[in-house]
């Protein structure tokens, strides 16, 4: 699979600080890529370089095979951008704004309006085409912005916080739309602080911190590797503590508690026989029942079979499980972990 975007030691230095530091990034064609990073990490600067708004200090970047320095206009033709701030002319209607954009991209006048109408149908904003931007709701504005950004059929679409401030229903509509665009062959680069959104939509996620790519994988891959690294860290901490005999009993308990993992389920009925057999299970370190009847357990962090054991016990005791959840690292955990590590390195 070829790459829609490639950067090689891409660097941007402002007067006294390096915003992007030798960034090497590959975004495969026709995928949805989530670009994450704390505020001021260099995401915006990277996007500005990729969209030819600013020039890199050193390194190179290609978009759809075109170099951003050598062929900026080709790059611009391939790119669409839906900025966080709806940057359409407020006094113009949705239709007029789209026409303006189409003409700035040099779209053939014969097919301009039909293309716009098709897009409006796709994002479902046609009913408001003669409304001024200033008269639209937040969600409608985003849709109008999408139409204007898609009018030149960009192969690569940047979406910067596209659903920020939108209600859950509108958010979902936009997510569906993003998937649909991706199915139609658009490569999508999504910048967002909404981890759930990124987790759900993206094929790959890159986390940028202090101008560097600090993590890159599929969302599940990132979470799995965090789980592994957490286990490793905890094992190290535990072995260190057991080596130090002087440590007080209370500290030891604290650490051992950390090495437990939460698990909970809801049963059709909390029969005593089930609870008793759970208590007898070696994997279960503690058990409590919440006021709504949910059974909360703590199980051994390091025992890979613990979840399986618990479920088997319940099923064998004729319990009927209505829902079950276990504590897993979220993408947010991955984000916090990978951005804090670098920050600590920086401080060192």
């Amino acid at each position, binding site marked *: 699979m070829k790459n829609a975007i490639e950067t090689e030691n891409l660097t941007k230095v402002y007067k006294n600080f390096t915003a992007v530091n030798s960034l090497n990034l590959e975004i495969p064609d026709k995928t949805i890529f989530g670009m994450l990073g704390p505020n001021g990490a260099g995401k915006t600067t990277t996007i500005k370089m990729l969209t030819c*708004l*600013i020039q890199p200090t050193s390194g190179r970047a290609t978009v759809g095979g075109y170099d951003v320095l050598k062929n900026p206009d080709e790059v*611009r033709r391939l790119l669409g951008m839906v*900025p966080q701030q709806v*940057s359409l002319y407020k006094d113009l209607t949705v239709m007029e704004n789209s026409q303006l954009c189409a*003409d*700035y991209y040099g779209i053939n006048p014969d097919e301009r309006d039909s293309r716009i109408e098709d897009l409006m149908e796709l994002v479902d904003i046609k009913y408001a085409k003669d409304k001024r931007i200033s008269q639209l709701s937040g969600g409608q504005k985003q849709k109008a912005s999408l139409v204007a950004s898609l009018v030149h059929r960009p192969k690569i679409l940047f979406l910067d916080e596209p659903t920020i401030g939108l209600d859950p229903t509108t958010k979902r509509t936009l997510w569906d739309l993003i998937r649909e665009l991706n199915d139609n062959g658009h490569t999508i680069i999504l910048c967002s602080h909404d981890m759930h959104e990124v987790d759900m939509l993206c094929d790959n996620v890159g986390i940028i911190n202090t101008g560097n790519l600090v993590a890159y994988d599929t969302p599940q891959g990132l979470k799995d590797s965090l789980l592994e690294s957490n286990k490793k860290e905890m094992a190290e901490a535990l072995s260190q503590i057991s080596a130090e005999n002087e440590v007080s009993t209370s500290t030891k308990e604290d650490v051992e508690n950390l090495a437990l993992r939460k698990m909970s389920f809801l049963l059709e009925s909390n029969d005593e026989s089930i609870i008793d057999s759970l208590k007898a299970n070696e994997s279960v370190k503690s058990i409590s029942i919440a006021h709504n009847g949910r059974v909360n357990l703590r199980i051994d962090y390091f025992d890979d079979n613990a979840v399986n054991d618990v479920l088997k016990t319940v099923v064998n005791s004729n319990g009927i499980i209505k829902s079950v959840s276990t504590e897993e690292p979220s993408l947010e955990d991955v984000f916090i972990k990978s951005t804090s590590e670098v920050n600590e390195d920086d401080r060192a």
Partner: protein
Amino acid sequence: MIELKKFGWMIRKELISLKRHPPRLISILAFPIIMILLFGYGMGGDMTDLPIVVVSQSHGDLTDLTLDTIKSTETYHVVEVIDDQDKAESMVDKGEVKAAIILPDDYDDENSTNQKAVTLYLDSSDQMASQILDSSTQAIFSRLSNMVASGSVTAINQNSTATPSISHQFNNFKDDISLHINRIYGNIKYIDFLVPAVLGMTVMMSCMMGMGATIAGERETGELARLFMTPTSVSTVIGGKIAAKLLIELVRALILIFMAIILFNVSIKGGILQTFIVLVIGALCFVGFGIMLSARTQTQEDYAQIVMPFSMPMMFVSGVFYPIETMPWILQKLAYIFPLTYLNDAMRGIMLKGQTLGDVWLDLAVLLGFTVLFFIIGVKRFNRDV
């Protein structure tokens, strides 16, 4: 062709905005009218009809002549003629009138050898009015005193009707001394001096302010970013903005010119077309100035801060209200680096002196030089970074 379309969109966008915001349209059109009214009536007009009271304590030909002369002078509006001096003074004190002209009780007494001491009881807190009242009252009484001395007043006694003889006597008097003033550009009022420069200043203000609003404002709200992400050069984007701005400015300049003609009967000796061309060059120059200043300004607020130190001094130093020669030398030198000085000079040349574009070529060359300089710096400094 495509570039032309892009230009067209910027103009269309501005016009649509105006059409959909009638208050904005009205304020754009009203601004030049308000300016010209303000400066025309507020600063350019003559002071007439200042309210006064006259205290007359005697009767006779000289008193009649004096009262008639005062009443027929445009400067005064005689509210009342009374014989109570205290009452007149209190009227001035209360601010009901600007002055009291008090004729002494022996004013008409031909036998009196005393000097006839007329008092002007003047509200000197109103500096402008008091100066005018002071000088015109002095003029009237020195004229009257001359007439008395030459025996003209006695001659009045022999005439049955007073009024014609007064004018007759006046004519006699005028014949005695005559001063011929040769005004080479005709009789120019202050408003005539003011209007060309007010035109220039209005164009300067709205071009500089307006350019910031469109460029820094659109940078702030992101519309500019969208344009810069399209395969379009900086100069096309900026060019479109200039075209739109220029169009609106020129319509306003025309309104300004016509309002000046209609309201103040301002004469444009060099013709409207030439005036218009000079204004176009001036507008271009200030739009360039605005672009240069807004090239790296990120917000509209920043722009407003940046433009003030340029526009305010330019307004006062470039000879809009007073001739440059009356200013301290340092300001005179400063005036020569402000483009508005050259625009004002060219505008006055064409409108007042009836010069042609060729006559004011130096002013125009300097303006165009500034324009080119501003544009080069502006476009060079301009970055797509938004």
